[in-house]
């Protein structure tokens, strides 16, 4: 009797252990490999994020949390963003250092006073036909990456980056108004990132 039960349990646990292996592979591929810290750029005074790279470092994705303290300009804001960047070009500056030009887009969710994804019930439906809290933010940037001395073992490196970004709505304004100039809609941000594995 007990032998039969044990046999059934072993048979049943087979797929489970296979799934655990898949889960382990998935978590290995999905776990973040990059830590990022950014100054300005519509996400807050300071924002921090975790991300990872794909397709031989050509694509990077990040989940970023940003904060603008109320003490800075009297407006407290927090943001949560999903950002993806794609490499345009890359060139070696030295053996351990390279320069990369990239473009990206972030979807920024703003949590601050009087902005909404869904407007409160006292507004008639479709009074505002766009959310004021959610915006897409295209960007173009440059980064310099230094590989650590033990890069071959650790795969770790440091990166400094600077980028220009804007907001979807500003781009629409630029397209609809000849009087707006291209530099009017862009703003600058800086940051550092650390690839730790």
């Amino acid at each position, binding site marked *: 009797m007990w032998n039969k039960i044990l046999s059934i349990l072993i048979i049943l646990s087979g797929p489970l252990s296979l799934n655990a292996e898949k889960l382990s592979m998935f978590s290995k591929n999905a776990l973040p490999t990059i830590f990022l810290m950014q100054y300005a750029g*519509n996400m807050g005074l300071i924002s921090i994020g975790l991300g990872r790279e794909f397709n031989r470092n050509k694509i990077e994705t990040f989940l970023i949390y940003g904060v603008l303290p109320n003490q800075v*300009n009297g407006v407290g804001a927090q943001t949560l963003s999903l950002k993806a960047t794609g490499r345009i070009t890359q060139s070696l500056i030295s053996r351990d250092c390279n320069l990369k030009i990239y473009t990206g887009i972030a979807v920024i969710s703003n949590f601050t006073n009087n902005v909404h994804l869904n407007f409160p019930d006292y507004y008639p439906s479709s009074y505002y036909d766009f959310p004021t809290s959610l915006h897409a933010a295209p960007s173009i940037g440059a980064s310099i990456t230094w590989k650590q001395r033990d890069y071959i073992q650790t795969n770790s490196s440091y990166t400094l980056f600077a980028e220009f970004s804007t907001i979807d709505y500003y781009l629409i304004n630029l397209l609809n108004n000849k*009087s707006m100039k291209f530099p009017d809609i862009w703003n600058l941000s800086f940051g550092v990132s650390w690839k730790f594995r």
Partner: protein
Amino acid sequence: MFWNKSIQKVIIYCSMVVSIGGCISYNLYDADISSSNLNNKNISRISSNIFTKDTLNFVIIADTHNNYDDLKDAIRSINQLTDLSFVICCGDVTLLGAEDEFKWYWDLAKKSKFPIITMIGNHDYLGSGKLVFNRLFGLTSFSFQVGEYKFVFFDNTVWENNNTSPDFYWLNEQLSGDKNKVLFAHIPIWSDQMEGKYEQRFDSILNNNILTSVFYGHEHSNKDVMRNNITHYVIGNIADRQFAIVKLIGSTASLKRISF
């Protein structure tokens, strides 16, 4: 050596980028703007300009939103007029209440050769728009006098102001007295935001006070309505490429719409 040159290049490029771009934005809804009190500054220009005149001409534009080309053309067209005392913008100078939008509006509006007074609209409340408006232009409800006329600007936004009541007590106070009074409010009395108790309160104040005219924006179309024995004018949005010239003579007002 190569390394040093590379670093130098990077520093030079970064400096160029900063000087060309020049701007840092922490958040779309930030209020990184110093106190300018532009409405008071422009009001002081009006008073010194026309204090002795017994008739008064002024222009009203409304709902400029993100129609910057139309605003630019409107200001150019207004600048060709003569014998104007001032220009009123009847609210909604933004779409999202973002600080950049206020700056872009003012960059064009300030080219008016006549003093320009800006009032708040419901869109300007979104985000931290009210704070930006306060810092850039001043109070959202205000009044000033020119000769025998009193111009009252009543902030009557309800929903975007956290669904709170406009300050009708302030309005009632401002509309008492002997001067010829001209009222500006962004949202018409019959509009959905005013519906119910606010409309009744607004009506009773207008019935109890003598006014020359009431001017609104908000509806994006021109309208003239007789109500409370007063003509209520709605000024269409700037995208319709029109503005209104108002002529005040004694206690009467006449309005002419001009296409540009």
